[in-house]
């Protein structure tokens, strides 16, 4: 399959609209989206299958203009009809000439470029009946494992992205898919605990093959977490699993190098470019082309093709990531990180696949090196604070390490807090294993959700836990 039939059919109308707006502005582009988002779900008592699930399902248009000073945008479900009349309406609605005291930034570059990108998935090879039956059987398998499991919830979330970008000089289109499989077990042993496992990829057959292999791990985990105790607050040696490493990369540091925050003077990182922000054994990347995962698009919502941006090199902050608007204001080249929640929303600088590079240490040696501390597992949530670089990241659970050995003592939940560079500079070991976890999504502030991945190796560091 290539670009969706609907978008292919809109190509001419989008060109017409760009032409109709060109006399009014120095830069014009139109992004069209036709993204299918489905959800299959089975739990103890119900099942469902639907289209248009979550924030990913969308179909519409967003026009972006620049008048030589600032930006204007118009989002619409349809651009049908007389394009000259629509152009006049857009000019009237966004009234850039009334935006007194506007910024003055250069007109975005619009080099001649035409490209079509397709990454095939196998979603159409599986019938609804096959998928739902698979989920129901998997749910039954989890429930059978232990009578203390109150509920098992199994979800499959395929999305198919179709986007077409048309400007005066460019036409880019892309078609690709991604599927997340999620299993949740709710367990009661005195108190209730919830645990989850995920599988992901761009081929459904791979995800369906992986999910059953995670059942025993899921059940073992909820049994332990149900009996976990609160952690004694304090500063500890920690070892992070791939997920918590990703949480640190994304939440503690990544938001701080989103360069729209540089423009707003909202990021301390702006003052640290070229300086040590982490231990010299730390290297970090972000980019749709940096790893193959859920955010591996071919071009972003500004029409900039995918990049691999090295953010930290040998402990030194070398670069941030940017969308077109922030790059234009900063006088830098955009890095392909302009993303919208959907066509109704503004584009911001957003992370994509964010991770630390693997190192040379063996995980078992890292554990052996800890006299007393915790290995932390699985992202619960995290809040960014790019201005002040304070961390608040929550792990689902931790396992106590005593005299270099993992014990059977689980603690949950575990909140990591502190000052980001202190944490990153405390990293003394980096494992040689590596995983980027592709089942996540992220907001900016308290809104603007997009799918992201993050991860990396295991890290040994020192951090305040509570």
């Amino acid at each position, binding site marked *: 399959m290539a670009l969706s039939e609907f978008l292919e059919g809109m190509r001419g109308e989008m060109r017409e609209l760009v032409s109709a707006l060109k006399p009014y502005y120095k830069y014009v582009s139109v992004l069209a989206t036709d993204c299918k988002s489905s959800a299959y779900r089975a739990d103890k008592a119900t099942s469902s299958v639907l*289209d248009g699930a979550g924030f990913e399902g969308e*179909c519409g248009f967003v026009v972006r203009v620049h008048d030589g000073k600032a930006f204007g945008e118009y989002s619409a479900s349809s651009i049908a009809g007389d394009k000259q009349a629509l152009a006049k309406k857009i000019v009237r609605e966004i009234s850039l000439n009334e935006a*007194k005291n506007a910024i003055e930034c250069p007109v975005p570059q619009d080099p001649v470029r035409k490209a079509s990108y397709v990454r095939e998935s196998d979603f159409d090879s599986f019938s609804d009946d096959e998928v739902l039956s698979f989920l129901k059987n998997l749910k039954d398998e989890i429930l059978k494992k232990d009578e203390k499991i109150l509920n098992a919830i199994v979800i499959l979330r395929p999305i198919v992205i179709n986007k077409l970008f048309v400007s005066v000089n460019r036409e880019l289109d892309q078609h690709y898919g991604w599927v997340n499989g999620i299993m949740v077990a709710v367990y009661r042993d005195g108190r209730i*605990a919830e645990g989850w496992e995920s599988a992901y990829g761009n081929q459904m057959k791979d995800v369906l093959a992986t999910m059953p292999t995670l059942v025993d791990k899921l059940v073992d985990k909820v049994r332990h977490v149900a009996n976990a105790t609160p952690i004694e607050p304090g500063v500890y040696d920690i070892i992070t699993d791939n997920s918590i490493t990703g949480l640190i990369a994304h939440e503690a540091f990544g938001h701080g190098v989103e360069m729209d925050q540089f423009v707003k003077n909202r990021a301390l990182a702006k003052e640290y470019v070229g300086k040590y922000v982490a231990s010299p054994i730390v290297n970090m990347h972000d980019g749709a082309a940096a790893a193959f995962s859920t955010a591996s698009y071919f071009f972003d919502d500004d029409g900039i093709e995918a990049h691999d941006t090295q953010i930290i090199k040998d402990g030194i902050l070398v670069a941030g990531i940017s969308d077109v608007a922030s790059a234009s204001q900063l006088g830098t080249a955009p890095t392909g990180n302009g993303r919208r929640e959907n066509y109704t929303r503004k584009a911001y600088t957003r992370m994509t696949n964010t991770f630390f590079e693997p190192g040379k240490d063996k995980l078992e040696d890292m554990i052996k090196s800890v006299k007393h501390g915790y290995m932390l597992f699985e992202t619960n949530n995290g809040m960014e604070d790019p201005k002040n670089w304070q961390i608040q990241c929550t792990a689902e659970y931790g396992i106590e390490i005593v005299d270099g050995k993992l014990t059977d003592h689980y603690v949950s939940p575990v909140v990591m807090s502190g000052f980001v560079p202190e944490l990153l500079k405390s990293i003394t070991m980096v494992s040689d294993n590596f995983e980027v976890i592709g089942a996540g999504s992220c907001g900016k502030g308290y809104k603007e959700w997009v799918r992201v991945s993050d991860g990396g190796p295991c890290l040994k560091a020192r951090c305040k836990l509570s």
Partner: protein
Amino acid sequence: MFDVEKIVKANAKDGYKIVDKASVSHELFFVGGKTETVRATETEETKVTVYVNNEDGTLGDSTFPVYASMDENALKVALNKALSRAKLVHNKPYALVEGGKEVVELPSNLKGLDGKDVAKQVAKAVFDAEMVKGGSINALEIFVTESKLRVRLSTGLDKTQIKRKISIEAIPTHTDEKESVELYEWYEVTSLNLEDITREISEKMRAVKDRHEAVKGTPQTIDVALRPEEIMSLVETLTDELSYGAKYMESNAYEVGDNLQEGRTGDPLTIAEKAQVEGGSDSAAFDADGTALKDRVVVKDGKAVALWGTSRYGQYIGVKPEDVTGDLGCLSVESGSLEKLDGRYLECASMSGIQVDVYNDYIGGEIRLAYLHEGDKVTPVTGISMSAKLSEVLPTLRLTNDKVVRGAFNYEGPSRMLLKNVQIV
């Protein structure tokens, strides 16, 4: 546009639901006090759910979106796919909501005003805030939105709700030659009151100056006063455990009759799920199923006394359709006995997000700014985290005896909740 309902009605013989959402907005984005982007949106989306009575007595359903771009043929293809999918779903049956035709406009003085003009006035009101030396608003986003929700069911129900609101995301910042600090402000109202906006932002400017001057807090055990924002997060987490859905799925931490304040020595906690609070951005007359919303006290004097939630899960656990509350979006907390906060305590002014985990008996989070009160002495502190056992702070909490309404958080109730003996690190 063709008649979606006519086509759906002709094919979905066992029942259907059509939910239309349309929205018009005017948006302004500022960087360093200057306009960076002017936006306007005009969007609509329809979601259709079809129901199938399966031969085994179960009910199947499936939902699909109808986009403005779809033609009649595309709708029929999507409809037939959904009808086939619904036959694969075998859920316990429930009755769709009954009702007639109704149009509700939620109270707002924004009706009839030009969204573009309102956005400009709001921007001026924000920048009119009192700026102390070193203060600025580094980033500002303003959204003026009118949205329409229409729910149509095969039972004949046809309800429309129109809401208008202003949303503001502002980043008050304080800078001197040594450092720059900021706070995050999300402010949502359903009516335009420029003086209120200026006052709110002025308060935040003073708070961010305090954060700038704050000293690093020290580890200790101390009473902590929460603001409406955090009180809402706490009580919302508690009442989520009392939803029909949680009960049906057997994942509820609380049952009706449970005492959430076992051994209480503090103020009794009484919480009502509500359809509307003044200025509440989630205030509504009916939910996405068309259920007319009914307020419900779910926690009375610390005891769980009732459940709440959607029609489907209400019916699943035996609630009569006419007694179902619907999916309520606001909360009311009864005021307590505390005349005023005094003595030695920490008053939260900005948290990065309070974490409440009923399963793990935990409440905590990073405090970005708090005021340490020691009698008449008040010291701004920062760089600390709080944590406590939920089972220990609920029985001993104190509530102020005032009542405030915070539409941005869909909350009404006391202005402060005092948690006793919280650990600070």
